[in-house]
């Protein structure tokens, strides 16, 4: 199963003052605004995880429909990979 990892050049930031969440690539300067869940996922991807592990973490954290979490997480991971925030490899 595919494993995901936060790109080494990406830094995560929670701006407490405005309760906003960001991912910054300190190499290219690209910057992304996240929601709380996106930040939660990326923060856990500082260590390699597969889709099931991420979904399990999310379900532990919030009361939501499992299928919806799965669909949204797949979409978020695809988008994050496309934008160079995370990388994946087959384990």
């Amino acid at each position, binding site marked *: 199963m595919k494993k995901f990892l936060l790109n080494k050049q990406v*830094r995560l930031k929670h701006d407490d*003052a405005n309760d906003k969440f*960001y991912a910054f*690539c*300190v190499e290219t*300067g690209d910057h992304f605004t996240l929601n709380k869940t996106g930040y939660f996922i990326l923060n856990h991807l500082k260590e390699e995880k597969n889709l099931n592990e991420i979904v399990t973490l999310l379900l532990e954290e919030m009361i939501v429909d499992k299928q919806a979490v799965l669909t949204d997480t797949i979409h978020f991971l695809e988008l994050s990979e496309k934008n160079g925030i995370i990388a994946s490899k087959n384990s």
Partner: protein
Amino acid sequence: MLDDHLNEFNYEEEFYFQWHITNGCNLRCKHCYHADYLNDSVQLNQLLQIGNHLCDAAQKWGKKASFSITGGEPFTNPDNIFSLLELLESRDADKIDILTNGTLLTDSIIHKLKKYKKLRRLQLSLEGLKETNDKIRGVNSYNRTIEAIDNLKKHGLIVSIMMTVGKHNMDEVIPLAEELAKHDVDVFIIDRFIPEGQSSELTEWVLSQEEIKKVYSRAYEYFIKTLKPRFLLYRTLFCLLNPDDPHIGAICSVGNNALTIMPNGDVLPCRRLPIKIGNLFETTLYDIWYMSPFLWEIRNPEKLKGKCNHCEYIPICRGCRAVAYALQGDYLAGDPQCWKEK
């Protein structure tokens, strides 16, 4: 009142870099914010590398890159200046100012400067009329600066003069402005004296709240009635004189749209706020701008203390963080020279 096209304050669209390319200087001004004059400049290829990076960053952020290139005295190495001008022109920098003491500007240098379209103006400094100026900047420096002004104007270049104002020269702001008008100086800038670097012991020069109010009020009156030289009043506290006039006052740029680069690559939030927040030979500007805890803290207006805390002028002022740091030892403290009653 000024036409809108003369309004230079472009907070939303611009990113400003004050870039000190050398510490080396041929003068020893009493009030200088430099702590030493060791010429620890980096090599030209490293300067160009930094220049490219700064342009990349401004472009990435969708901002116009505005540069003040200075030192020390930047013309101690004219080859470096001209190489940088070539680079910044080719990288489509929005505007470039050179901050110089003017004493090394030969005819040949001035002639070469004329070809750079992005070179907005040369900024020289005077600290009052001749006697006062020469006590601070050295014997005969007033005459040398006036000569440099006349020479630059003769070649059609735009000239601004910076005056750092304290108790020692506060009564000479308007007389100097009148004198500069005779020499066709385009722009006159005044800034508050801050005791740091060479001048850290000169605390007796610091203006009181009432004195700064008086100086700023006189400058504003002059600004309204004459356009020659044009006063640039984009500084914190000026908004107190007329909050509805968009041509005066400015929010402190620290953490918002400006950074200072030192000769060794160190990055400061402002040249007058000597707190290192990174080094461009160790990390990227992006890393510094996005992740510096200092910058995140200072961006948060809730953190401001004293008079600045919850002041209604926070969106257009924030007080000067460098003055707060120099005089109170706390960059989040209320601006100690603010005359507004809380």
